[in-house]
């Protein structure tokens, strides 16, 4: 009899605590659920905030980094003397490695017509160091800028570049609009 009683009491306490745990779990679920979205979130660089510090190249968990330079062609002046391509003060506008700003020669210079040149990024070579971005924003239109490439990004729970970004330029954006490409801010999106 005595034993039955103690077992019953223990079961009663256990059931009570189980209910309490269940309710607190439901409470957390409701509270967090009210701030939840059906859509997933991905990391992206806001080019307006980026200060081209160069940490994107080193802080990403991927090596080479999932951050690449992209070219908003729409903003580009197609200059012969490109601030993003050539080192400052080059004597001749030649494509020799000694003249190039990019440490991995990831920018291809392509002649279009007099006097225009197109600059195309080879993403397999680009390491996201932002040297060209700095050059382009200092001397040009700022059409070269950094973006997180989602075919390479692991979408870590906490982006390790975001943690060390000095200018808070990396934020989460909804996966349906995963890029913040310059120019698209200014002109309305097509379609």
């Amino acid at each position, binding site marked *: 009899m005595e034993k039955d009683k103690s077992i019953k009491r223990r079961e009663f306490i*256990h059931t009570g*605590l*189980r209910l309490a*745990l269940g309710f607190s*779990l439901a409470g*957390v*679920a409701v509270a*967090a*659920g009210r*701030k*939840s*979205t*059906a*859509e*997933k*979130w991905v990391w992206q660089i806001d080019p307006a*905030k980026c*200060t081209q*510090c*160069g*940490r994107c190249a080193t802080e990403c*968990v*991927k*090596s080479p980094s999932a951050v690449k330079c992209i*070219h*908003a*062609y*729409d*903003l580009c*002046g*197609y*200059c012969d003397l490109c601030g993003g391509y050539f080192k400052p003060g080059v004597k001749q506008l030649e494509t020799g490695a000694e003249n190039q700003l990019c440490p991995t020669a990831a920018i291809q210079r392509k002649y*279009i*017509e007099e006097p*225009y040149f*197109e600059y*195309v990024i080879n993403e397999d070579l680009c390491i996201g160091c932002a040297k060209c971005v700095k050059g382009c924003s200092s*001397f*040009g*239109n*700022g059409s070269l800028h950094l973006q997180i490439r*989602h*075919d390479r*990004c*692991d*979408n*870590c*729970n*906490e982006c390790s570049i975001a*943690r*060390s970004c*000095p*200018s*808070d330029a990396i934020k*989460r954006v909804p*996966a*349906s609009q*995963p890029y913040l*490409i310059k120019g698209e801010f*200014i002109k309305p999106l097509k379609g």
Partner: protein
Amino acid sequence: MKNISRIFLSLIFALTLFQANAQQRFPKPEFETGYVQPSPTTPEPRSTALEYTDVLVLLAALSLASWLVIKKRSRRGILWLSIFSLLYFGFYREGCICSVGSLQNITLALFDPVYKVSITVLLFFLLPLVFALFFGRTFCAAACPLGAIQDLIIIKPVSLPVWVRKTLSFIPYVYLGFAILYAATGTDFIICRYDPFVGFFRMDAPYIMIVIGIALLILGLFFARPYCRVFCPYGVLLSWMSKFSKHHMSITPAECISCKLCENSCPFDAIEIPEDEKIRTPKTLRENLKRFSLFALLIPVWVFIGGYAISSSHVLLSRAHPDVYLSELLIAHPEMKNDTKNIDIKAFRESGKTFDQLVENAAVIRTKFRIGGWYLGGFLGLVIGIMVMNQFLFRKKEIYEPHKGDCFSCGRCMSYCPVEKLK
């Protein structure tokens, strides 16, 4: 009225256009050859639908694991399922998102007014806990990639003395507390940052984390599942749920005959051994009850000491936040304000914020740490108090049973049971 607003709107429009053009140092080229500019490519991220598939896979893995442990009682099934989870959640999904880390997202969502959390992340957080509440830690048994990688390499587990285990079991509470404090203040996600195994899943990690990961795996050959038992902060929540779970696995399928065969079968020392009846004389029981009540009364003291200790070290703790760190650096070395080498200082100068704003913001964050420190310290004090108190709690154990909180439901012990063999 309509006209005025229209003029006004077009004025604004013209103004924005002008500003947009003002950024353009070089005009847009007009190609004579009819060349058309390409537009930048935008590779899509992994689709949201696939994230929901992950949730379904997790749900399926948890259901299967619970069925395998409780109904089927198959260690082999659990083993294969854990290999699948290691391959899927570990190597294929590269360890993100995982339930362990998701607790930080939930914390941040609860504390940060603007932070949004995806439903898939919320489900990753909730599902294992709900399952633990009903079936025990079946998540640890077969659905957690971090658990699986350690479980597969257990070679020769050694048993540790009880006092060492009890002391070590306090660490996960500390880790959980600090993870919540740092997530709630928006400082850092320390669980993800110091995840020792994600580097293996991605075949890429900072050097120090690779070293720690390998060290933990080597340790895991002899001290089974070191991360789960000594560090895992999510394991704390799971053990709370599991302790009061409705249908936890049992070692024997029928009645325990106390044959002692399973006694050493658990690599995690999670089997509770029936106590010798002789030590339970009325005298020792009375003594214990006295001590139990004494330590129960001491709990508020523990809570206060803990709260005071952590809260008074809030200045040190808050230094992990970049704003606090920068403001303290600039206060200590005012001459660094014009440093061109320091990236953080340079970026701060270019951001246009004033020094006073930075100091003010740092003060706000420090206050959060002071208040959070009281909660964290109080919580840790409470845990210590209860742990000490429980030393004198006698619960009659007559049969061999897994400790419901510590048991990972891996099912190793089941095959040691002779009753099982007879079945």
